[in-house]
C-alpha cells in the first residue's frame, strides 16, 4: 500500500470507528435502560484513535479465581454471558472523540459465590522507544520495561499510559472506585497481522472481585488518546479533568477546610493570634476521645482501666466533665476562626479490651489468629493498647457511624474530620467482609482490605451535614502506602513531611490529590540530611536558609502550603504565605503549560481560564531573564494576557496559541503571573500590562491593539474592573474603601490615647468577636513582637461616646456602630473597611451581615500584619534530638532565621512605636 492509499485507508477506518461508536452508545444505553436480561450480543469495541490515526482497543476479561481458567474475554463494549458470568457495557457521553467513557457491569448469574479476576486491557500499536507510565514514579522505556514489577499497583493512580513522541493512550479507572487489590502492567503482544496499525503492545488493569450468587457490580473506566507534549503529565491532566468530584475541592464544605493547618496552635496551645498569623484555617484536633474506638465517648465505655495512666488533663476528667471540656476546647475554633477537624484514626484502631469485649469479630487478624496490628506502646491516645479493626459492615462500624452522627448532631463546633493513618493494606476476613463491596481473595480465602472499610466510612462522613456545610475530610494519605481512592475522598492533604523529604512519594501524592491542596505539616528535620556536626554554625544556618528557599519554590511547584512550624521565624516564607494560599486554592494543574525554561526555573500552573496563575521559581543562583512561552490551550478556550504580581510592566506577545512573556526572576525567588484578560484565539499582537492599586482603588492598563475581553482585576477580592478609557480599567476593592497605607497609619496606639473600639449598644456575637480580636491583635503584637515590650490595650465601649472623649480618641467603629457614619458617607456604604473621609481618626469595620463583620475584621488584621510584623521564633526542635543540637549550634533555635526579610520601614516603625524599648 503506498503512502496515499494508506492515509486514505486510515481516514476511512477512523470514520467507520466514529460511526459505530455512536451507534453503539444508543444500543448499550437502551439495553440497560430497559433492564433487559443480558445475553451475548454482537456490538462494537471501545476504541479511540490517536493523532496518527492508530487505533487502541479495550478488552475485558474475566478469569475464574479458583480454576485460573478464562471465563470470558471480549471487546470491552460487548455484552456477553459465559459460564454463569454476565458482562454488560454502558458508554457515556465524552467531551471529545478522543475519549470513551464506559461502565462495565458484571453479574454472577450462577448459584454460588464466585472468585473472579477482572482485567481491563488496551491493545495498541506503539513505535519503538515508547514510554510506559504505570500510575506513579517515572516512566520507563526500552529494556527497562521488562523490569517493571507486574503487581504492586495498590498505591498508584488507577491510570496507566503508553506514549511516544507525538501521541499516547491512557487507560484509567474512575478514581473513586474502591478495590481490595490492584495491578497494572504493560506487555508486548504478538501482532495479529503485519499491518502497520496492528497492535503490538497491551496495558492491563487487574482487580480481584468476589461476587455472591446474583450479585452484580460495575466499574467506571475511560480510554483516551492524547498528545504528550508534557509526557505522561498530559494523560494525568486529562484524568484530573475527567473526574472533578475526585480531584477538585468540594464547594459545599467549610471553605477553611482547604486552607492551611494550625498545627495545634488552637487545639493545644490556645494561641489564636499566632494561628491567624501563621495560617490556622483548620485544626487537626488530636485526639478528642478518651478511649480509642469510642470516638463519641459513651457512658458505658467511659470508665475502664487503661494500659498506661491517663496523661492528658482531658482524659483524666470524669464523664460529664470530659464532655463539657471537650465542647469548650472545640469552641476555640469559633474564637480563632479555625475549622475544627475532629481526629479519628480512620477508625482502624480500637482499645484492646473494648475491641475484645464488644467487637471481637471486627478485629483484623492474621491467618494464624493473631492480631494483624497490636500496639502495646503509646499510639493513638498514649494510654491505651490498641488493635487493628475493620470499620465496615459490622457492629463496630454501626456504633462508629452512630458516634459520628451524634457528634455532628450535638452542639459541638466541628467542621470536619481528620483522618489519620489513611492507608489500609491489611486483609480482614471476619465480621463485615460479607457486607463489604469489592472483596478480594487470595490463597487463604475471601478478604476485604481495610482501605475498603475506610473508604466507605469516608463516604458516610462526607454525606454528614452541619451548619449548612457537608463535613470536610482532612487526611494524611502518603505517596507510599495510600490507596488512590482514599486520596480521592480527601479534601485537604495533611502532608506529614516538608517538601524536600520523601521525594519519591511527593509527586505521587501530588498526582493522587489532583487539583486539591497539600499542606506541609512538619518541622524542618534537616539534621539527618546534612553533616551538621562537621559544618560551621554559619554553614548550618546557610543550609536552613537554603531549605527555606526550597520550601518557598516547592510550595508553588507542587501546590503545598507551609504550616506554622515552617513559617515561624522565617519572615520570607511568612511574607509569601498569603500568595501561596491564594494560588494553591486556585487548584494545582498537572501540566505547567510553560516552555522555554532552563532546568533551574520551575513552572507551576493553577486554576483554569481567566484568573489562572502561572508560577515560576528560579532555583538558580543568578537572575533569570528571558522569554517564556505559555501554552494557552491548556488554560482555556482563548488566548490570555498576564499581569505581574506587583503591577510592574509585563511585556508580552500573543503568537498563535502562545503568549510569550518577558520575565526577570531574582535568584531563589518565585514569580507569580495571573491571566487577567482574554483575547480571541485568532488574535495576534503585543500587549504591555501595568497596574497600580492602593488597596482600595487603582487602575489597570493593557496597552495593546489585540481585542481584549473578560478583564479581571489583578488584585485579590476586587469588583469587576470598569472601563475608564481605551485600554484602561478602574480597579475597586470589594472590601476596602480607604487605601491600605492610610488604614495601616491609623493611630491605634502611640498618641495621647490608644484607640477606642466602639460597639453598638447591644452588640451581636460577631461584633463582640470582632472587637475582642482587634483587642487581642494589639495585645499580642505589643507583647510578642519586640522583646520586653508590653501589651497594647484598646478599650471597648458600647453605644456612642459622649463628652470630650467623643472627639479626642481615635475610634474603631464595629458593625452596627457604623450606620451613623454610613448615613453621611454614602460612597462608603458598599464596602466594609474604611476611614472616615472627614476624620481619619475614625475607622469603620462593618458589613451587611454579622458574618460580613467578622470577615471584614479578618481582612483588616491581615492588612495590619504587613505593618505590625510578627515573624515568631524559628524551630527549636525536630523529630530527633540531633535537630535541636544542630539548631543550637547554628544559633538559630527560637530566633528569626532571616531578619533581613523584614522590611526596614517595618523595623523602624516598630521601634518608633515604642521608643522606650531597646
Amino acid at each position: 500500500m503506498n503512502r496515499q492509499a494508506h492515509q486514505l485507508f486510515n481516514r476511512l477506518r477512523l470514520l467507520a470507528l466514529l460511526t459505530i461508536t455512536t451507534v453503539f452508545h444508543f444500543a448499550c444505553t437502551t439495553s440497560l435502560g430497559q433492564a433487559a436480561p443480558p445475553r451475548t450480543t454482537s456490538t462494537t469495541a471501545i476504541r479511540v484513535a490517536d493523532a496518527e490515526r492508530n487505533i487502541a482497543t479495550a478488552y475485558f476479561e474475566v478469569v475464574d479465581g479458583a480454576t485460573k481458567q478464562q471465563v470470558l474475554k471480549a471487546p470491552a463494549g460487548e455484552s456477553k454471558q459465559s459460564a454463569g458470568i454476565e458482562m454488560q457495557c454502558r458508554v457515556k457521553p465524552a467531551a471529545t472523540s478522543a475519549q470513551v467513557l464506559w461502565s462495565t457491569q458484571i453479574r454472577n448469574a450462577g448459584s454460588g459465590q464466585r472468585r473472579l479476576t477482572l482485567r481491563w486491557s488496551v491493545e495498541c500499536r506503539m513505535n519503538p522507544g515508547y514510554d510506559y507510565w504505570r500510575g506513579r514514579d517515572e516512566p520507563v522505556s526500552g529494556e527497562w520495561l521488562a523490569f517493571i514489577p507486574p503487581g504492586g499497583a495498590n498505591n498508584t493512580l488507577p491510570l496507566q499510559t503508553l506514549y511516544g513522541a507525538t501521541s499516547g493512550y491512557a487507560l484509567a479507572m474512575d478514581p473513586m472506585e474502591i478495590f481490595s487489590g490492584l495491578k497494572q502492567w504493560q506487555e508486548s503482544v504478538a501482532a495479529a497481522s503485519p499491518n502497520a496499525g496492528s497492535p503490538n503492545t497491551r496495558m492491563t488493569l487487574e482487580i480481584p472481585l468476589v461476587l455472591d450468587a446474583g450479585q452484580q457490580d460495575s466499574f467506571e473506566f475511560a480510554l483516551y488518546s492524547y498528545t504528550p507534549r508534557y509526557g505522561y503529565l498530559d494523560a494525568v491532566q486529562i484524568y484530573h479533568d475527567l473526574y472533578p468530584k475526585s480531584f477538585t475541592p468540594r464547594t459545599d464544605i467549610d471553605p477553611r477546610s482547604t486552607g492551611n493547618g494550625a498545627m495545634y496552635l488552637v487545639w493545644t496551645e490556645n494561641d489564636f493570634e499566632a494561628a491567624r498569623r501563621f495560617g490556622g484555617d483548620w485544626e487537626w484536633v488530636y485526639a478528642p476521645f478518651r478511649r480509642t474506638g469510642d470516638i463519641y465517648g459513651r457512658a458505658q465505655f467511659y470508665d475502664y482501666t487503661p494500659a498506661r495512666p491517663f496523661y492528658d488533663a482531658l482524659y483524666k476528667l470524669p464523664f460529664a466533665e470530659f464532655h463539657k471540656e471537650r465542647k469548650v476546647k472545640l469552641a476555640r475554633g469559633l474564637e480563632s476562626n479555625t475549622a475544627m477537624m475532629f481526629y479519628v484514626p480512620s477508625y482502624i484502631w480500637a482499645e484492646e479490651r473494648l475491641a475484645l469485649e464488644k467487637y471481637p469479630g471486627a478485629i483484623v487478624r492474621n491467618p494464624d489468629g493473631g492480631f494483624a496490628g497490636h500496639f502495646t506502646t503509646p499510639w493513638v491516645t498514649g494510654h491505651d493498647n490498641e488493635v487493628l479493626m475493620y470499620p465496615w459492615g459490622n457492629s463496630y462500624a454501626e456504633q462508629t457511624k452512630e458516634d459520628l452522627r451524634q457528634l455532628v448532631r450535638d452542639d459541638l463546633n466541628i467542621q470536619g474530620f481528620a483522618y489519620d493513618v489513611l492507608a489500609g493494606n491489611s486483609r480482614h476476613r471476619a465480621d463485615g467482609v460479607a457486607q463489604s463491596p469489592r472483596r478480594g481473595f487470595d490463597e487463604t480465602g475471601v478478604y476485604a482490605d481495610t482501605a475498603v472499610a475506610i473508604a466507605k466510612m469516608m463516604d458516610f462522613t462526607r454525606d454528614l451535614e452541619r451548619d449548612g456545610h457537608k463535613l470536610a475530610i482532612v487526611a494524611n494519605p502518603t505517596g507510599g502506602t495510600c490507596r488512590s481512592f482514599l486520596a480521592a475522598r480527601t479534601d485537604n492533604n495533611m502532608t506529614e513531611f516538608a517538601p524536600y523529604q520523601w521525594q519519591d512519594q511527593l509527586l505521587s501524592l501530588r498526582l493522587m490529590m489532583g487539583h486539591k491542596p497539600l499542606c506541609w505539616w512538619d518541622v524542618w528535620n534537616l539534621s539527618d540530611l546534612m553533616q551538621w556536626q562537621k559544618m560551621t554554625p554559619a554553614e548550618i544556618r546557610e543550609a536552613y536558609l537554603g531549605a527555606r528557599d526550597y520550601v518557598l519554590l516547592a510550595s508553588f511547584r507542587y501546590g503545598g502550603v507551609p504550616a506554622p512550624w515552617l513559617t515561624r521565624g522565617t519572615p520570607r516564607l511568612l511574607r509569601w504565605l498569603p500568595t501561596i494560599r491564594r494560588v494553591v486554592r486556585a487548584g494545582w494543574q498537572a501540566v505547567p503549560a510553560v516552555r522555554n525554561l532552563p532546568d533551574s526555573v520551575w513552572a507551576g500552573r493553577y486554576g483554569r481560564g481567566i484568573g489562572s496563575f502561572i508560577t515560576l521559581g528560579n532555583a538558580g543562583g543568578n537572575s533569570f531573564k528571558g522569554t517564556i512561552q505559555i501554552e494557552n490551550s491548556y488554560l482555556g478556550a482563548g488566548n490570555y494576557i498576564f499581569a505581574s504580581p506587583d503591577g510592574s510592566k509585563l511585556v508580552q506577545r500573543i503568537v498563535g496559541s502562545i503568549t510569550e512573556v518577558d520575565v526577570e526572576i531574582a535568584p531563589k525567588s518565585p514569580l507569580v503571573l495571573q491571566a487577567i484578560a482574554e483575547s480571541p484565539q485568532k488574535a495576534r499582537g503585543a500587549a504591555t500590562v501595568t497596574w497600580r492599586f492602593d488597596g482600595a482603588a487603582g487602575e489597570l492598563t493593557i496597552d495593546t491593539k489585540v481585542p481584549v475581553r473578560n478583564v479581571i482585576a489583578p488584585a485579590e477580592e476586587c469588583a469587576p474592573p470598569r472601563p475608564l478609557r481605551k485600554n484602561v480599567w478602574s480597579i475597586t476593592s470589594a472590601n476596602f474603601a480607604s487605601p491600605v497605607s492610610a488604614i495601616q497609619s491609623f493611630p491605634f496606639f502611640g498618641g495621647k490615647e490608644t484607640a477606642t473600639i466602639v460597639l453598638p449598644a447591644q452588640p451581636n456575637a460577631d461584633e463582640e468577636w470582632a472587637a475582642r480580636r482587634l483587642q487581642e491583635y494589639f495585645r499580642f503584637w505589643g507583647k510578642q513582637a519586640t522583646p520586653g515590650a508590653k501589651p497594647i490595650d484598646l478599650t471597648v465601649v458600647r453605644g456612642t461616646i459622649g463628652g470630650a472623649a467623643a472627639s479626642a480618641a481615635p475610634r474603631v467603629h464595629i458593625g452596627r456602630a457604623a450606620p451613623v457614619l454610613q448615613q453621611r458617607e454614602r460612597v462608603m456604604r458598599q464596602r466594609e473597611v474604611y476611614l472616615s473621609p472627614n476624620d481619619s481618626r475614625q475607622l469603620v469595620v462593618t458589613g451587611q451581615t454579622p458574618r460580613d463583620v467578622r470577615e471584614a475584621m479578618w481582612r483588616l488584621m491581615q492588612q495590619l500584619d504587613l505593618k505590625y510584623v510578627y515573624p515568631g521564633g524559628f524551630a527549636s526542635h525536630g523529630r530527633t534530638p540531633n535537630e535541636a543540637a544542630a539548631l543550637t549550634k547554628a544559633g538559630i533555635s527560637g530566633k528569626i532565621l532571616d531578619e533581613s526579610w523584614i522590611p526596614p520601614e517595618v523595623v523602624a516603625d516598630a521601634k518608633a512605636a515604642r521608643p522606650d524599648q531597646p
Partner: protein
Amino acid sequence: MRQFCICAHILVVASLVAACGPASAAEGPNLVTNPGFEAVATSGPATEKKPAAWSFGSANPEIFRHEIVAEPGHGNVIKLTALDGKMSGYWTQPVQLKPKTTYEWKADIKLDRGKLLIYSYCDGKDKSTFTWYVVQSLARHPLVPYFWKPEWTTESVSSPQLAKEFPVVHGATSEPGKWKTLTCHFTTGEATTMTLLLGAYFAPGTYWFDNVAVHEVLP
C-alpha cells in the same frame, strides 16, 4: 534485612580499629589484579566482554547489564547498569593480605542515580576486613545543587545495626556524573584473604568503577 542477606556469612568475632579517610603518605604495591579494567576477557560475544580477574555475582543477574567503556582520562572503566532495584549485584575479586596489617582500599566511582556499594569481607571468622561504603547519588536530591552544597549532604547508612556491629561502615553522597575517589582504611586480624566487591545496592541506576587499589599502609 537485605544487607544482612549479603553479609550473613560474615561472622562477628572481634572488633578492631579501622576508618575511611584520606590515604596515608606511604603505601605498598597495589594488590588488585587488573585494577583499571584495561585487560578484557575476550571469550564470548563482543557485547559480553568481561574484565579479566574480576567476576560478577548476583542472585538476579538478569537485571544487570555490563560494559567496558572508555572514559576520558580513565581509559577503560567498568560500567554496571541495574535495571531494577530488587537485588544487588557486584564485581568481585579476592585479594591476599597479611594478618594484623593496616591496609587501604581506593576506587574511583561514578553513578548517575541510585545507590552504589563497595564492601569487603573475609571468609574466615574474622570480621576485620569488613568495610562497607555506600554512596547515594545526589541525582534527585531536592536541595542539591541549587540550595545546598554537595559536601553538606550525608547518606545515613541504611542499617543502624550494621553500623553498630562492624568497624568500617560509611555513607556518602555523590554528584551524578562526577568521578569521585573513595578511600577506606582497615586493619586485618588473622584473616589473609579478603574479597572486594563493587556494585549496585538495591537501586536501579548506572555505576562506573575504575582504578581499584588495595595497598598496605607502610609505617
